[in-house]
């Protein structure tokens, strides 16, 4: 298993963002659904080794991230796209991706090929030498994805990856996620249920810091057959599970 969480909890003062989550995940695309404030981003930050848990245990890629050496090893094999991508406006696309390739300790001789591969996979070739300040929101999102996959990660964490992408780009990105999920564990946090239905083999639904559903997208769809609100079957399943959790 690439991810093993046991009773993972994160508190901010009196607020509990993540409340006792237990989860395991191997290779594949894993969707993390939930309304705003459900704890998805906090959970993803813990998986990205940025945010330490308040309690519980966490193992990533067969390593314990509380140990500095192990954490460094995890980070070499980790890709992360935060919800709000910070970037350096004066960098070009290639410079930005290369910068993070170096910070991820990819051997320097392999960096140019890794950068070119990531840029091409995200269809940014024509904009490779463009300054980031000149790019649209959708393009910047793709730059973020490019830096996340530049080290060919075994664990890829994507927080709202399709935000700002147009429909054509979203379809292409779902194909990329499925491709990456062949060998890596891809965790996608989103509130767009159609992304989950199209790309994820498994899904967890979070509400108020807890995982209230875990199963396949079709199992989630089945939960909304008799009740639930939404235009699409998966949306009805999503709302039915949330209503039940809140009740």
């Amino acid at each position, binding site marked *: 298993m690439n991810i093993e969480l046991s009773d993972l909890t994160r508190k901010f003062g009196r607020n509990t963002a993540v409340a006792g989550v237990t989860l395991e995940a191997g290779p594949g695309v894993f969707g993390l659904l939930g309304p705003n404030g459900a704890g998805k981003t906090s959970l993803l930050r813990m998986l990205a080794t*940025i*945010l330490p848990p308040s309690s519980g245990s966490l193992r990533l890629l067969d390593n314990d991230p509380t140990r500095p050496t192990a954490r460094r090893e995890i*980070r070499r094999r980790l890709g992360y796209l935060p919800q709000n991508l*910070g970037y350096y406006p004066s960098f070009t696309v290639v410079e930005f991706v290369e910068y993070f390739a170096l*910070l991820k300790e990819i051997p320097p001789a392999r960096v140019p090929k890794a950068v*070119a591969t990531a840029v*091409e996979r995200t269809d940014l*070739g024509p904009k490779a030498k463009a300054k980031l300040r000149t790019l649209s929101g959708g393009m910047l999102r793709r730059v973020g994805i490019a830096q996340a996959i530049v080290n060919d990660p075994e664990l890829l964490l994507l927080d709202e990856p399709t935000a700002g992408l147009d429909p054509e780009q979203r379809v292409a990105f779902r194909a990329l996620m499925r491709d990456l999920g062949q060998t890596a564990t891809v965790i996608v946090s989103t509130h767009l249920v159609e992304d989950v239905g199209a790309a994820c083999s498994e899904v967890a639904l979070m509400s108020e810091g807890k995982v209230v559903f875990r199963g396949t997208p079709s199992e989630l769809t089945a939960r909304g057959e008799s009740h639930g609100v939404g235009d699409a079957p998966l949306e009805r399943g999503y709302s039915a599970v949330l209503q039940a959790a809140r009740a």
Partner: protein
Amino acid sequence: MTMPDDVDLDRVWTNVAAEVWRREPGRLERTAVKLLKSPGLARALLTTPSLLFPWLVATAVVLVVGVLAQAGAGQPLVWLIAPGVAAVGIAYAYGPGVDPAWELSCSCAVSDRMVLLTRAVAVFAVNAVFGLAASAIPLGTKAQADTAQITFAWLLPMAAICALALAVAVAARSAIAGAGAGVAAWIILVLASSVAGQTGTPGATQHVLTPAITDTGFYLPYLAIAACCAAVVSYATRPQRGIK
């Protein structure tokens, strides 16, 4: 000319793109890689000034003004101002809300603490270069003999003040707090030492503001402050802390 069917054009193109887009590190970066034993750190170090262009401009302006003031009044304002400027630079060079890619950097194998330290080195280096350049200006004066010594001497108080600013910024998680603490500490130190200097040597007016720099008795305390603050930074940025 025909092409074999089994050629993977995507792979060929990626190899071509890798060559076309390859960035050759400059001599400075290659040297930094050798010294730091880390291409990532070297890149972070050399990237910092370009990320902090406004800070660089401010530093240059302050030092030029200091040089001009020094030339006019014989008062080494450069060395008085530089530590405060460096402290502000360090405080503003780190942290969420300051570095746009902070969160991404935190998830990388090269530790954010090491990136922070390389950025501190960048601030020191730039100030040292400016300081040395300023030292070379008053040619032919009696002060010239002492300028190099003084320039290096201000690196010590600068190290102490910057370390203090950094420690406060990291501990308080506020660049403003760090910058304020650094500048305030330096002003208090300069004023306190000048008062002590005037008491000790009545009538001495030439270097009324400079005992904090020129008095070698201060050097050991500066080093001690820098060491203590470095320990605070080390503790505050320990991996278990994370960000909120």
